[in-house]
């Protein structure tokens, strides 16, 4: 049974990783081929960094990811605080359902619905073109929001609910109490929401695709364009770089989380130890 499970897991992991290994491997291929590996070379990477277009796209993608995540994190964190405080049940559930929609809907539907809105606005205001950086930014903020909210809400629920009251009792205004007391308590959730948003934004193709014009390109859109032409290994080196970037983000967010958990664990341990010492000392 144990051997069977090991073999099975190994096979599935092979299946999951085969294309990735191929990609990374061929990004270092010397020949201009995606099926014959002739030798190790960094030339595709060099080529990548010499292409102004690629650097442009890379810059677009990073700015878009950072900005959209930042906006989504601010709006989303505030929203999580507000939603948790809502007392009207129907309102709360309505707001929740609506903000989860971009998560539930297929990307193509989210992308197209927003494209329609922008197309209509364009028509309404008689504009030449509205599609470009701003429309993609709005789209990214929109689909990032539910993920930020989802990672902040549990932290708010975990927070001692008397914490803000204690702050108010000690003389904080509500705003001060939020920034001095609550925000530090929910910070791990806010940060992991932010990192999550960055990775999603870096990775998104479908929604950006429908909400941009030919001029503003992100990496995934650029890659899509490349796969329509004859493909050279530079697409792999680009993807490897993108993957490395996302990987870095993930590791960072994991570190943040485990750091927070460790702290929590230490605190709990300390409390337990204290309690034990008290009981043991009870009858000396």
């Amino acid at each position, binding site marked *: 049974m144990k051997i069977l*499970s090991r073999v*099975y*897991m190994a096979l*599935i*992991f092979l299946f*999951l990783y*085969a*294309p*990735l290994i*191929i*990609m990374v491997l*061929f990004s270092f291929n010397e020949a201009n081929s995606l*099926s*014959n590996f002739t030798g190790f070379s960094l030339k595709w990477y060099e080529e990548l960094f010499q292409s102004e277009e690629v650097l442009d796209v890379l810059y677009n993608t990073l700015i878009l990811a950072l900005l959209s995540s930042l906006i989504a994190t601010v*709006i*989303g964190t*505030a*929203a999580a605080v*507000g*939603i948790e*405080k809502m*007392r009207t049940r129907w309102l709360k559930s309505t*707001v929740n359902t*609506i*903000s989860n929609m*971009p998560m*539930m*809907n*297929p*990307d*193509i*539907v989210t992308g*197209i*619905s*927003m494209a*329609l*809105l922008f197309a*209509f606005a364009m028509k309404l205001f008689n504009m030449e073109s509205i599609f470009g950086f701003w429309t993609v930014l*709005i789209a990214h*903020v*929109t689909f990032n*929001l539910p993920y930020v909210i989802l990672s902040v809400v549990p932290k708010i629920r975990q927070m001692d609910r008397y914490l803000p009251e204690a702050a108010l009792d000690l003389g904080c205004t509500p*705003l001060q109490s939020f920034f001095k007391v609550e925000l530090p308590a929910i910070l791990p959730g806010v940060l992991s929401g932010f990192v999550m948003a960055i*990775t999603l934004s870096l*990775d998104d*193709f*479908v929604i950006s695709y*429908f909400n941009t014009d030919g001029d503003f390109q992100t*990496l*995934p859109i650029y890659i*899509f364009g490349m*796969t329509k032409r004859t*493909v050279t290994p530079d697409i*792999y080196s680009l*993807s490897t770089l*993108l*993957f490395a970037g*996302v*990987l870095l983000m*993930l590791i960072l967010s994991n570190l943040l989380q485990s750091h927070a958990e460790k702290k929590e664990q230490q605190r709990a341990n300390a409390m337990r130890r204290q309690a034990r010492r008290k009981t043991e000392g009870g009858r000396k």
Partner: protein
Amino acid sequence: MVIQKEKMNKKRSFLRTAAAYPHMVWSALFIVAPLIFVLYYALTTEDANGNFQFSWSNITALAGENYLPVFFRSICFAIVATAICLLLAYPLAYFLSKCKVSSQRMLIMLVMLPMWMNLLIRTYSWMNILETNGLINNLLTTLGLPNAKLLGNGAAVVLGMVYNFLPYMIMPIYTVMSKIDPRYLEAAADLGCNGRQTMLRVVFPLSVSGIISGITMVFVPSVSTFYISQKMGNGRFEMIGDTIERQFMSNYDYHMGATLSLVLMVLIIICLAVMNRFGEEDGGVLV
């Protein structure tokens, strides 16, 4: 004094809820309004002057031979891909949940990791492996075997879907399984279950909710995908997503595109509703 405090409390909770207002405005503008526009475009056509006119023609066109086979094909492919994902993922999730707790976290990371490779690239990489001059065929040639046509058929499309969405099936099932209290398994053994019976009578019923959410999480992207079918099927298997993309990106028929998206949404809402009902029945009391 009490009244004053009450007032302050009210003011405070008002301030708090107000924190959600920007988000609510944003959602209204960029989630609700776009969905209304989908409906609006679906129910209108554009005349020669660029004016919108109410019309059922988009909807009636759906029943025609242009679209019906596409829907049917999309649903079939999605169902097959979902079923294969379930068959592959269930044992894996079970084995994962039985691993040492310390290694579980790592393994789960490993399951999720390929998801962070861009979907386009993952799919493209498979093309590389499967195409006529691809890795597998190269290997076959080296071994002196005849080449096989691995790309451009239905199986390749399904493979693409299974590959891309398998982690979506593994994750929820694993999460539910890892939360099954080991005492339930002990209780089952205590009451006379051998390994197989424990699996059938305790583990499976307790993991139904994970299966349900796995099915929805795989079915929704499978039925709406457009890239995978184009690339893995060499464009021979047009699916709803492909049709929508074509309407938007080459035909510039936003109205038909919106109609198709509407259908996709309705389809998915029905799917979610069915799954929810199913989940409720099973999660509740089994008689």
